[in-house]
């Protein structure tokens, strides 16, 4: 069976179509959020929060309730606290996040091992951390929650594009000239929480940073205006995720790692293109 026939075979299944749709939406959100986080040097916050989300998910697993009910509120609250404390300078970015990160990870794994009634703990944990097939096994509730939340997040990024730019580029100026920066920072913190939780379904908790960081960095290498950086990051993120999901389907590789490797390859290609453009301009 050649590749196209195999893909045609798989596409008759609804779960594949849903995976592609949700994958596209989540990648778009991660890319747009990633540009802001990378430019504000908040990338580590994304990483720390993904570990907190894992800890929250472990609690949900132990209590056998739907994971979203615990992950979303916990991650959003921690995100708001972290952003607020960082903005006020009360928390030194890297060490506090490192403590939170490993603490949540250890706590999560410990309680899952002690209290969980699942028959296959390593399998559950592995899927949550690395996202091997979670995007392909979404249940109805997760599917619609993902779609609705991502549409809200995308709407926010598009509608408030200019204000987000101003607050990211120069928060002091924005606040002094009348922009309600506190509101925008709180909304951004909530969005970080939401996007991290959703992205866990696509690439797993340990690999979320890649989805946030790589498309933004690839775009920043090649483009000079904020708008084009956002657009290109979104496009490259979606392309990488689609290719990643298809490769994973065809060759049985774990979805999360495949998407991340493709992101790395794309970043490397963008880097080479940038060097080529620079050298030809010099000549």
């Amino acid at each position, binding site marked *: 069976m050649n590749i196209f026939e195999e893909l045609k075979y798989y596409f008759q299944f609804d779960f594949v179509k849903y995976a592609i749709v949700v994958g596209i939406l989540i990648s778009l959100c991660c890319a747009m959020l990633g540009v802001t986080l990378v*430019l*504000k*040097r908040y990338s580590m916050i994304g990483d720390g929060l993904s570990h907190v989300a894992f800890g929250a998910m472990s609690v949900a697993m132990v209590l056998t309730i739907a994971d979203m009910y615990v992950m979303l509120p916990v991650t959003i609250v921690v995100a708001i606290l972290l952003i607020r404390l960082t903005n006020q300078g009360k928390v030194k970015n890297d060490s506090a996040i490192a403590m939170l990160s490993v603490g949540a990870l250890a706590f999560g794994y410990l309680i899952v091992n002690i209290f969980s009634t699942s028959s296959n703990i390593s399998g559950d944990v592995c899927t949550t951390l690395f996202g091997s097939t979670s995007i392909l096994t979404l249940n109805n509730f997760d599917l619609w929650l993902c779609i609705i939340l991502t549409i809200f997040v995308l709407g926010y990024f598009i*509608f*408030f*594009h*200019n*204000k987000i*730019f*101003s607050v990211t*580029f*120069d928060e*002091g*100026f*924005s*606040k*002094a*000239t*009348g*922009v*309600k920066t506190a509101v925008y920072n709180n909304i951004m913190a909530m969005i970080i929480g939401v996007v991290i939780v959703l992205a866990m379904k696509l690439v797993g908790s340990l690999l979320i940073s890649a989805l946030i960081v790589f498309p933004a960095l690839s*775009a*920043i290498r090649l*483009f*000079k*205006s*904020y*708008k084009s*950086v956002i657009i290109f990051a979104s496009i490259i993120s979606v392309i990488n995720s689609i290719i990643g999901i298809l490769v994973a389907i065809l060759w049985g590789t774990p979805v999360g790692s495949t998407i991340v490797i493709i992101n790395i390859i794309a970043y490397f290609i963008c880097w080479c293109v940038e060097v080529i453009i620079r050298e030809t301009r010099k000549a």
Partner: protein
Amino acid sequence: MIECKGVTIGYPEKTICKNISFSIKKGEYVCIVGENGCGKSTLLKTVLGLHKPLKGKIAFEKSFNKSSIGYLPQQTEMQKDFPATVKEIVLSGFLGKKKWYVPFYTRQEKAKCNTIMTELGVAEFANKSFKELSGGQQQRVLLARALCSSDELLIMDEPTNNLDSKSIKLFYKLIAKLNKENGITILMVTHDLDKAIKDVTNVLYLKDELKFAGTRDAFCASEYAKLFGVEEE
């Protein structure tokens, strides 16, 4: 226009400067001077509402719209590498005055932006990346952004840091023109008072407290003038 009464600035753990009282009238060109760490930037930020004063009150004229302030802050490291075109940055000056449900720039705002950029001589860089410009050009871009935000009051924090002397001269010439021809009130923290002094109307000198607040001529005749190289001939 701005009235400052008995203000103490600083942080909860540390008072930097106390007993600051002064008033700024429309059309004045005021310079704040002092040693490093005496609280000049903090005073500016307190006037702008970015910091709360530990004591005292800062009041603006009733007819003055607080979102009509032009601010030129010190550049951060992050901004030097930020991917943004000059036009995107200058246009962002309008955002403070826009309602939240009008997120996109109107045609009038884009036209005004073009006018201001032409006036400041940065229109040719409109679609260039901010990080590719020289220090002097970047400061003019940020000044254009501040002017989009306000055509009445310009508050600047050490705008000539990192500029070479030729750019500094050009910059002060520009500020003087904005003050005299366009009637914009200027409040500026500066380290090179001697280069701006001939167009300045008032000076504030901070050192633990407000040691001097008065006209330029009075300052040049005072005992502090020689600290800044502006003694009367």
